[in-house]
């Protein structure tokens, strides 16, 4: 694992051998580790830092059939100024929308430093032809998205056709960010690869899918679409954080992690930050390398932030519902 394999051509059988040669994951042990880290007690100054860090890492998301231009404008306003009563609250990392609304979001957040993420490749199921997936991703980029959240073909993965999954990711990557090896260059969009871990089920699969996505050129690996239960969980995120840590050591390229779906409370978010801190390390404690795919989480973070500053809880009516 010394040469930068993600720039090498990988054939089907060697890919399979590599993925099946990764160390296995003991589920009981991984769950115990995640539970132990959940018991960390984050108070006072540490909590203050964590709440603000979590806000700055949010991909504020709306992915509904009923999304309208009005809804997108509203979440963009929220993204720019999460707490109208407190200008010191940081802005979020990105807004995440469907491709047909990306142009609206791009216009709304222009000049703020907030990224526009768009789901693509027949999100959430990914059940269509490669041509349609590539067209979907191209459309997202052309509409102003600078981050694309693609889904992998879970069916192919579960059937053992790793090459197909790899090739699709690599092809989307080419559309989104140019050939492998050019990640991070100015003007290139970022590729987040959604593994949909709720459908992969085992932690061994999560580890293999993580490596597969990274080898194919993912800038980020993301747990879930949010449309399948369970979405993000701590043990799954733990395994993904181990994967990006080991991938950096083996290939010299840092890949980000994005748990998405089901993270609703500040307490949950802080648990994830502890997991990042003690697994991948503090280099990942940055919106460039760690994101939360969430919507209602933001208001709970703001509420806890106000509580920490004033010593009092205010009702949910004091935080905007966007």
């Amino acid at each position, binding site marked *: 694992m010394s040469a930068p394999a993600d720039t090498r051509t990988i054939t089907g059988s060697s890919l399979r051998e590599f993925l099946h040669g990764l160390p296995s994951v003991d589920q009981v042990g991984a769950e115990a580790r995640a539970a132990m880290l959940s018991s960390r007690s984050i*108070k006072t100054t540490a909590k203050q830092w964590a709440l603000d860090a979590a806000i700055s890492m949010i991909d504020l998301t709306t992915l509904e059939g009923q999304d309208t231009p009005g809804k997108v404008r509203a979440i963009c306003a929220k993204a720019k100024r999460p707490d109208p009563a407190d200008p010191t609250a940081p802005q979020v990392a990105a807004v995440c929308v469907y491709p047909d609304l990306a142009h609206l979001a791009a216009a709304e957040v222009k000049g703020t430093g907030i990224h526009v993420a768009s789901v693509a490749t027949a999100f959430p199921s990914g059940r269509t032809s490669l041509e349609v997936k590539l067209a979907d991703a191209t459309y997202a980029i052309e509409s102003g998205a600078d981050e694309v959240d693609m889904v992998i073909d879970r069916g192919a993965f579960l059937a053992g056709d790793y090459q197909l999954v790899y090739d699709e990711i690599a092809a989307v990557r080419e559309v989104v960010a140019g050939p492998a090896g050019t990640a991070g260059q100015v003007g290139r969009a970022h590729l987040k690869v959604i593994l949909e871990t709720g459908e992969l089920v085992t932690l061994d699969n999560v580890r293999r899918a993580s490596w597969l996505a990274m080898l194919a050129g993912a800038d980020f690996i993301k747990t879930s679409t949010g449309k399948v239960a369970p979405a993000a969980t701590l043990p799954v995120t733990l395994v993904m954080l181990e994967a990006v840590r080991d991938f950096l050591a083996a290939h010299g390229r840092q890949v980000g992690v994005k748990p998405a779906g089901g993270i609703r409370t500040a307490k949950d978010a802080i648990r994830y930050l502890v997991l990042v801190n003690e697994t991948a390390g503090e280099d990942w404690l940055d919106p460039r390398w760690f994101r939360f795919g969430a919507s209602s989480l933001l208001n709970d973070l703001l509420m806890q932030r106000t509580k920490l500053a004033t010593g009092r809880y205010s009702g949910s009516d004091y935080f905007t519902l966007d």
Partner: protein
Amino acid sequence: MPKFEYAPAPESRAIVSLRESYGLFINGQFTPSADGRAFKTISPATEEVLAEVAEAGPADVDRAVTAARTAYERTWSVLPPKERGKYLFRIARIIQERARELAVLESLDNGKPIRESRDVDIPLVAAHFFYHAGWADKLEHAGYGPAPRPLGVAAQVIPWNFPLLMLAWKIAPALACGNTVVLKPAETTPLTALTFAEICRQADLPPGAVNILTGAGETGRALVTHPGVDKVAFTGSTEVGKEIARSCAAVPGKKVTLELGGKAANIVFEDAPVDQAVEGIVNGIFFNQGHVCCAGSRLLVQESVYDQVVASLQRRLATLRLGDPLDKNTDVGAINSAAQLARIRELSEVGEAEGAQRWSPPCELPVKGFWFPPTVFTGVSQAHRIAREEIFGPVLSVLTFRTPAEAVEKANNTPYGLSAGVWTDKGSRILWMASRLRAGVVWANTFNKFDPSSPFGGYKESGYGREGGRHGLEAYLDV
């Protein structure tokens, strides 16, 4: 300066109301020692004196054994078994109600992290009482005959590493089977045992069923050699265990169980789940500062994954948080006593002198109190003293092996035989190894997991007799 610096999160001491001095607990009453002698117990993390505790002499031992005998004959052994069970259930519930207080007190007196006393020790203590409460009226189904009888008065001497948990392992089965007890906690950690005495009163336990004598080696010797004792149960060092075995051998009919030292092998195969194995290694040797008789103090790694495992282990150890035992984020607490610290230092120096490579993560030790950094020795061979002698501290010796047969051979090549760990993805290999390892407990893809229903005990110099489970009842029944 780390980005995400965890602010101090200390558990409050306010829940514990320490008394200035504690007496002996004899026949349901707290009483000073006959000759007025006392000693101080300190917090090993700060060297602060916590309280003064009476030191029991021969006259006190005599009083306590007499009280236990009377209680045995007049109340406890003749009580209907289901009534004994009710008392044990009541004690278990009070322990749960007072769990936070007991956890704080344990961490104060012992130096172990509150995360462990809160999440491991105290819940297991309650579990042991619940479990044995259930046995009290079902002993005829335990496989020891239709109406197994208790033994009488049990003398029990316990160590300082899991003060209240070791008390539970001793007292719960003894009472469930109908015996009465005189228990001596370790001299460095008497406080939770004395709080347990209060709990016995709170539960209205008949006076004399449980007696607690505080003191050091002399007290223990007087207790285990007292002619009024029918049964001796000891957990502690192999050296003292042998002395007890010798003295009890002279008395026909006196039953003895000993749970002594260990030098367990934690065996990592090349197909192991590496990240979880590393957690298991950490939990095996740094749990409770390595003050664990079944600690995985010898790491046997298959040579083909040696570099990877050692690198992962070192990276992981750099994240361990050492410091204030009462801080909820502390992973490694204080060494229990100056004497134990001196022994750990001495053996570590021997390790270096014998040519093993010593490594510790960057780690700032508090100035006051007794502290030792998590330490790993690589390049250790079977001949080194650090591979043979129990260090009873946060010190890991790493050895390698090439084949499963060699792993078994090296794992068994020790005077001890308390526990072992096997890390592999192959189920068949786990079974193959488990049937060949001469150790009382073999953990597969985990380490240091305890449950009241699972018997615990050793081979060879790790002692004899089992504690916990159906097997553990035998030690307190006339079978």
